[in-house]
Structures are given as C-alpha cells and as structure tokens.
C-alpha cells in the first residue's frame, strides 16, 4: 500500500509547476471566453449602429415615424412594423404563457412518473422543430381553417402568426419552468400539505412562488424567441404593413420587423437610405430584446430578494 501511495505523491509534487501553469492557462482561457460575450454584444451593437445611424441625417424623423412603409418609393414609416412585431409577440405570449405554464405544472406536480418521462422528451423534441416546417403547416392548414371558422377576409393574419409563434415559445417555457418547479424542495410541499392546504393551494401559493425566478426566466426566453422569429411570420402573416390600432388588428394581416429585414435585405444596394433604415430596424429590434432581458433579470433579482426575506 505504502509503496503505491508514496510515488504518486512524489509525482504530484513534481508536476506541481506544470499543473499550475496549465491551470493558469485554463483560467485565462475561461476568463477571456467569459468577457468575449460582452465584446461580441458590443461589437454587434457597434456594427448595427455604424450602419444604421446614417438614417438620422437621411430620413426626417417625421417620415421615419409615419404610418406608411413602402421603401421603394421613399416611404420609410416604421411604426406599422414595430406595431406588427409587438402585436404578434403579445398575441404569442397570451397564447403560450397559460398553456406553457399549465403544461409545466402538470408535468412537474400532477402527472404520474411514467407520463412525465414520456411528456418531457416529446416537448423537447417539439422545441427542435424547424420554424419553416411550422410555416408550412400555417399556410396549408392553420390559415385556411382560421379564415373559415372566424369568417375572415384572409387567413394570413397576425393571429395565425401569434398561434404559431406561441407553439414555438411553449417548449422553451415548459422546459425551463418545469426544471424550476422540479427544483423546489419536497419539504415545501410537505409543509403546505401538512398544514391542511389542498393540492391546488400548494401549487398556486407555495410551489409556483418558490420557483418564480425560473418560471419567469422561461417565459422571457420564450418571448425572446417569439420576437426574433422570422421565417414563420414571413410565411403566415401576409406581410401587409398595416398600422396597428388596437387588438382588432390581430385579425388583419401584419408585417413584422424581422420579416421586413429578411424580405428586403437581399435587394438593397449597400449604403443606400433603404439599407440604413433596415439597420435602424435592426437596432430597434436589438433594443427591444435588451429591454425584455433586462426586465427579466430585474424581476428575477427582486423575487430572489423576497425569497431571501421569507427564508431568513
């Protein structure tokens, strides 16, 4: 035994210097990759800014914030596009959050073990579904169905986009929220049940608040995916740049910022006004997702503090 241990200790001391150098290299590497994310974000923003800022001199603000988008003829009103993106995203959220959350609660709290073992992987497969495929389903099945059942002029509407984007966001919400609910200690539930709470009261008043930060993160990630999604909305929303005036616009065609960039980027000459405006739209999109993310982390931060207070 001794003969075996002593040489190995010697080996460690001999390799100490080398391992320390190795560790240093690894630590620096990790540090650099950690900071590289910040550098990339800054570089992306700088790139968008340098290509898009020229708009300020080229297009008067009055034109930029008007309600007509037809860049071929010099109409650069981006309000309908911002409205379209927000409308479709809000619609998707209204659709995805209740369904996603109830699915997560069902899987984590109610479903028997075997159902849970089947459901979770299936939902995660759903998350990997290419958005183009969803677009096809939208054009061929969902749009005609919505047009007939709701008696709309056309099935290519913001609502169609919202439902499909909701379907894209649901797997993300379910997956992250379920992990968070699963992470709530068993003792919380036992304590609630012991003082006479019903199962529903336990879920609504104890488990869900305890898992709040993870659940909110899941919802925000889902919304983030919905805002940035391009292909599906381009295929099913009809892309008509109609000014959004209230929720009734859900039943009309709409044009989102992402679809506009995707459809028009290929055609523009580099350095033209139209090109700069498209980059400006990119900046706005970047800002919106920044706001969503910051709000999410602020919310998570606040709930954490409250949780700390309860525990102390």
């Amino acid at each position, binding site marked *: 035994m001794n003969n075996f241990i002593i040489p190995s200790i010697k080996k460690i001391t001999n390799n100490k210097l080398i391992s320390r150098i190795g560790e240093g290299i690894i630590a620096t590497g990790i540090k650099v990759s950690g900071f590289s994310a910040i550098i990339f974000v800054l570089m992306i923003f700088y790139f968008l800014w340098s290509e898009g800022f020229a708009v300020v001199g080229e297009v008067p603000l009055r034109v930029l914030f008007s309600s*007509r988008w*037809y*860049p*071929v*003829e010099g*109409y650069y009103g981006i309000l*309908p596009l911002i409205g379209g993106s927000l409308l479709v995203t809000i619609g998707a959220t209204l659709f995805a959050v209740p369904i996603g959350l109830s699915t997560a609660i069902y899987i984590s709290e109610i479903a028997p073990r075997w159902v849970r073992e089947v459901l979770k992987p299936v939902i995660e497969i759903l998350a990997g579904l290419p958005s183009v495929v969803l677009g096809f389903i939208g*054009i*061929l099945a969902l*749009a*005609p169905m919505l*047009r007939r059942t709701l008696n709309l*002029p*056309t*099935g*290519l509407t913001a609502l169609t986009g919202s439902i499909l984007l909701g379907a894209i966001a649901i797997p993300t919400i379910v997956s992250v929220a379920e992990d968070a609910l699963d992470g709530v200690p068993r003792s919380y539930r036992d304590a609630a049940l012991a003082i006479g709470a019903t199962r529903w009261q336990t879920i609504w008043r104890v488990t869900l608040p305890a898992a709040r930060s993870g659940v909110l993160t899941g919802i925000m990630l889902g919304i983030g995916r919905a805002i940035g999604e391009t292909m599906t909305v*381009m*295929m099913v929303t*009809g*892309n*008509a*740049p*109609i*000014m959004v005036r209230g929720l009734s616009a859900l039943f*009309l*065609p709409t*044009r989102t910022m992402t679809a506009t960039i995707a*459809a*028009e980027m*290929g*055609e*523009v*000459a*580099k350095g033209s006004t139209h090109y700069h405006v498209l980059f400006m739209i990119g900046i706005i999109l970047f800002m919106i997702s920044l706001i969503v993310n910051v709000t999410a982390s602020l919310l998570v931060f606040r709930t954490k503090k409250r949780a700390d207070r309860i525990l102390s």
Partner: protein
Amino acid sequence: MKKLPALFALLCLGFFAAACFFQPSDTDSQNNDQPTAHIEIKGSDTMVNLTLAWTEAYRDDHPSVSISITGGGSGTGIAALLNNTVDIANASRRIREEEIAQARNLGIEPYEIIIARDAVAIIVNHDNPINYLTLQQISDIFAGKHHNWLELGGADRPIVRASRESNSGTHMYFLEEVLRLGDPNSKLLFDPNTLLLPSSEGIIAEVRDNPNAIGYDGLGYVTPDVKVVGIGLSPEGPFIWPSIETVNQETYPISRDLYAYTNGEPQDATKFFLEWVLSEPGQEIVKELGFVSITP
C-alpha cells in the same frame, strides 16, 4: 478499453477524409481534355424555373460547364451583379437608371440581353364569378378604391389583394404598368392592406384557397388551380386572355421582356451559354415552360 470507440471514430473519419480527397481528383482526370467552367446566375424568381430547364438541357451537351442558379428577385440579382458576385443577373424588369449609375461607380458596365418574354396573368379563385376585368378596374382594386367584389359585379365578399414582395421584378412591373397604367407621373401606391407574399407559389396558394383573393403572377407559374381573368382596355372589350399567341400578337396588354445582365459583353463560357439560350433549342424550352419565345 475506453480508447476503442475513439480509435474507431478516428478510423471512420480517416476513411471519410480519404474518400473526399480522392473522388474529385478522379473526375478531374476524366475531364482533363475539356477545360471546366463555372457560371453563377442569380435574380428573378419568375425566371428560376426557366433558367433551371435551360441549364439541364445545356449540361447534356456541355458536361464540363457547371452552372448554379439562385432566385431572390430581380433586385437581388442586380445587386449581386453590382457586387460582382455573379456572372449573369436575371431580371424580369429593365435595370433602373440609378442602378446603372451605381454600377458605373463600382466599375461595372451592365450589358443587357432580352432572353424571353412573359405575360403577367391576373388570377382569382375558381369560386369567384368574375371572368374578366378592365385594366382600369384592376388598377383601382390594387390601389384600394374597391373593397368589395359587389362593386365589380361579383359576390358580396371583401377583396383580398395578393402581391409579391417589393424585391420582385413582377411587383415593380405591376406597379408601373398596371397600377399606374404606365403613367410615369402617377404617384399611386398599392393599398396598405395588400398581402406581400415572399414567393410566386405563395400567391398561387392564397388565391387557390381563398375565394376573396385576387393576385398576379407570371404566366409560367399559373396552375389550373386558379382562374385566369381576361383583360380589356375598355368596359366594352374585347377581353384578352394571356397566351403565347396573344403575347406575340401584342394584343394582351400586360406582357414584358425578361432580361439577362452581364458585366460588359459576355465572355467565354457565359457567352456560349447565352448564345445557346437565344438559339432555337433554347427558345423551344421557353415555350415548353409557358413563357413566350423572342423568335415568333
């Protein structure tokens, strides 16, 4: 033991790399006597199928020439020509003055060749009782002056307009020649409710399915699933349906030329390809695909 799968994977990778490496050198030696050439074509979505058919036929006689084709719209093709990333830019509209100016700034001299002709068909759903419209009525529909088919003698249904995206040559042609009736001073625009669909197939799909819809598409793309509307210059008629005959007799009012643009006069492989396209076998394919040949 743990190393075995890794070793196996490495071996597989090795075989794969060897296969990749040896195959091209094999074919190279076969074609050594013929110089290989590559032609890059990009542009009009209307012309993608036509160009593909040309390429397939051309490849049979000229196996050494490889041709790649991408769509994306006429504007996209011309932008690519300006950036000097393609040999031929397909366009279903004529190059604009400002694009020529831009090209010259970049040291590129666009050279124009008309390679085929096309008619733009106005299409509606088969359930729509409308069979013909005047050019003025079509202009009014797309400009947003009519909102119900009742105003045009149809059923009591809302009108849904379907158009291509603005990067499409067909879109610009339709705007200039139909919506604005060829008047360069006209400032008419598409109604903001007009659906802007990313592909010709998208328009066909919407019109096939939706009895409220009206759209336009290149004649080569129109399928029997949709109804082609006859067009007249006055309400009394005569109403003309698009066909190879009516386009060549110049009686169908909305037909156009399809262009190929190159940087300067075409050279070498590009030149031989375009010469073949303009020859009789090339133009025979134009007719087969529902377009109109330039040689009547």
